[in-house]
């Protein structure tokens, strides 16, 4: 027996070689042992593919995929190819936290981004801090800048609601009316609208005379409308979820041919809905907030045209190959811009792997502004590293002949407010 160990026979040598070869072929040994940095960078994407956020999810996936192609065609990040792993969270907070854990620990993603719905973001952020994995949200909620979340959660790709409504309130009170009735979804995102728009209107000498909260899973809306006071001058509406079309249709039915207040809507009430749908004719002449105008405007920049084509959206804001498939244009740019910010922060921090996650967050916190261009087609933004929040310009559009035409644009200064938190003083 010992003899056999010392002088192996030809057969055992061949068996050993075959086994070793098989091991190499199946990839059990690390392929990039000598050059770890040539492995792709893996980004996790928390996607609302199903559930009440599905319309957004569909377009967030398309936009992020289009941005990924641009990034990889230009050589990736730090010379490494980039991959995005999309994982469905069902637009559910509990599932959101699970998906985050799966992407971070099982799929070994370098970071996770892409979530929109505020309840999912709030439900997931603590998990990001636990696992010490950067979490870049595209949510609009004020929960990042309010100090509610943590050092690992940032929102560099889209302006928060507080800043948006503060920028627009003067337009509403000066052009539409001073007595406002608000209709909003009854969860964190809607509460941001309720609190900050009411305050912003009061600061302009106006008054919010009714606040009507509607559960985001509601399917019928007529029963809420009698609560709109008769003396209302402006109805401010913002709605989310699969029933937004029903919401606007029933609002139109409710007033019918009778006199109605001015309407000022957040584009959320119409995202992924064709404005030419039967029953929406009454919207003609009403105003909408848009972060990013759905209909290509006459003065569209080159970057805007490039972005629109890359994502596959036509001049009317629908999929280039299906005019009935309307985009969530006022929100989805955030995934595009966030990906380019990830690239910039990874390159600034010399990001190599999971060990550099803290350096990545610090590099992002050090950023101050993003110039308009192919990487930021929605427009220039400032970034506040202390509050982890980006601030951009907003548009107000008017429905004219079945299309949205921009009539007002805010400035970066309009949306500024004093810091409420300094995340950079918190430990990692």
């Amino acid at each position, binding site marked *: 027996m010992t003899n056999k160990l010392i002088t192996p026979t030809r057969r055992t040598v061949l068996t050993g070689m075959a086994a070793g070869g098989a091991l190499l072929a199946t990839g059990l040994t690390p392929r990039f042992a000598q050059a770890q940095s040539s492995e792709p960078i893996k980004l996790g994407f928390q996607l609302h593919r199903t559930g009440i956020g599905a319309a957004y999810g569909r377009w967030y996936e398309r936009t992020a995929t289009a941005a990924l192609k641009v990034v990889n065609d230009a050589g990736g990040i730090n010379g490494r190819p980039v991959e995005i792993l999309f994982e469905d969270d069902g637009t559910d907070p509990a599932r959101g936290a699970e998906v985050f854990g799966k992407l971070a620990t099982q799929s070994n993603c370098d970071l996770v981004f892409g979530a929109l719905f505020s309840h999912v973001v709030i439900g997931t952020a603590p998990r990001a801090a636990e696992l010490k994995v950067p979490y870049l949200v595209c949510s609009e909620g004020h929960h990042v800048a309010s100090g509610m979340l943590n050092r690992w959660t940032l929102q560099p790709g889209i302006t928060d609601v507080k800043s948006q409504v503060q920028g627009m309130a003067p337009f509403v009170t000066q052009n539409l009316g001073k007595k406002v009735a608000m209709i909003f979804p009854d969860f964190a995102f809607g509460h941001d609208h309720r609190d900050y728009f009411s305050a912003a209107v009061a600061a302009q000498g106006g008054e919010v005379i009714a606040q009507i909260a509607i559960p985001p899973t509601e399917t019928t809306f007529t029963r809420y*409308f*009698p609560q709109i006071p008769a003396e209302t001058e402006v109805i401010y509406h913002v709605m989310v979820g699969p029933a937004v079309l029903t919401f606007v249709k029933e609002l139109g039915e409710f007033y019918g*041919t009778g006199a109605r207040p001015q309407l000022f809507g957040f584009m959320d009430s119409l995202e992924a809905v064709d404005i030419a749908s039967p029953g929406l004719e009454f919207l003609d002449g009403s105003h909408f907030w848009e972060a990013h105008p759905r209909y290509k405007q006459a003065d569209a920049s080159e970057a805007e045209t490039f972005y629109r084509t890359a994502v596959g959206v036509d001049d009317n804001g629908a999929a280039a190959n299906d005019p009935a498939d309307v985009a969530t244009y006022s929100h989805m740019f955030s995934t595009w811009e966030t990906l380019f910010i990830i690239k910039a922060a990874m390159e600034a921090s010399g990001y190599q792997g999971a060990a550099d996650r803290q350096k990545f967050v610090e590099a992002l916190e050090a950023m101050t502004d993003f110039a308009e261009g192919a990487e930021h087609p929605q427009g220039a933004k400032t970034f506040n590293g202390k509050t982890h929040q980006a601030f951009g310009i907003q548009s107000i559009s008017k429905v004219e002949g079945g299309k949205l035409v921009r009539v007002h644009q805010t400035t970066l200064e309009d949306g500024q407010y004093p810091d409420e938190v300094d995340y950079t003083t918190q430990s990692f």
Partner: protein
Amino acid sequence: MQLGSIFLLALLEGLVSASVLALTACGLSLVFGIMRVVNVAHGEFFMLGAVLAWFTASLMPGPPALTFVAALVICPLIVGAVAALADMLVLKRLNYEPEATIVATIGLLYILQQGALTVFGPNALPVPAPLDFRLQFPGFGYSGYKIAVILAAVLLLLGLWLILTRTRIGLVMRATQIDRATARAFGINVDRVYAGVFAMGAGLAAIAAVLIVPIQQAHYLMGADPLLLSFSVVIIGGLGSLRGTVVAALLIGMVDQMIPIFMPVVFPAYGAWFTPTLAKIIATLVVALVLVFRPQGLFGKRMA
């Protein structure tokens, strides 16, 4: 708005709610009354009807009125066929044991819901209304189609009552309900009656869904609410009693709309309290009270 206008609006909205609910709940009540099966998947048959209505309307050429009528005929038939298949493949093999059928229909719920998600996707699917006119009342406008829904539901319920009381099919169904073994001894094919009843119950949910879908759009998660409300209705009305189901549907439908519409006007200082959620809480509380004090329901007969 004047008090009278608000009352009229609440009444109309309540009637729309009640009529759709009555149709859905009658299906659930029928299945329980005759088969003693608590069908947890009933809401998903409703959803399936709505999604198929979108599918039919988007595939068929022609004006909305025509495609809608086609959907109203085709969708309940398809949903009924799916239900009959489920009965023959699953429920029959469990010998209709109460506990086993509850678990089986829970399974069916997920299969139908996730199946609809896989085939038709996660988006809200709009169906154009077959009638496009608006009624202008003092103080508010109202969709003409919603009034048509109320009328259609009344006609359908009348038809259902005639089938159950005046036709041979109804006689066979009632015989099976009263005593399954004796019915079989008289040569009634009980298996076929059960499959037919399960199909009819699901078909009623599908009809209700086709009627509501031009108002609400089809969505794969829409089955939860009708299921919950239908259960409330049949428990209050008495499981298996058609008359009780209709009365309870009117009651729940009215509570569901009257509380959020009318009460904030009567008590403006407490307006924020009278939400649809409160209406659901009250409905559920009534269900609990009925279960405690009159378990057979308001119109149900005490079981032996």
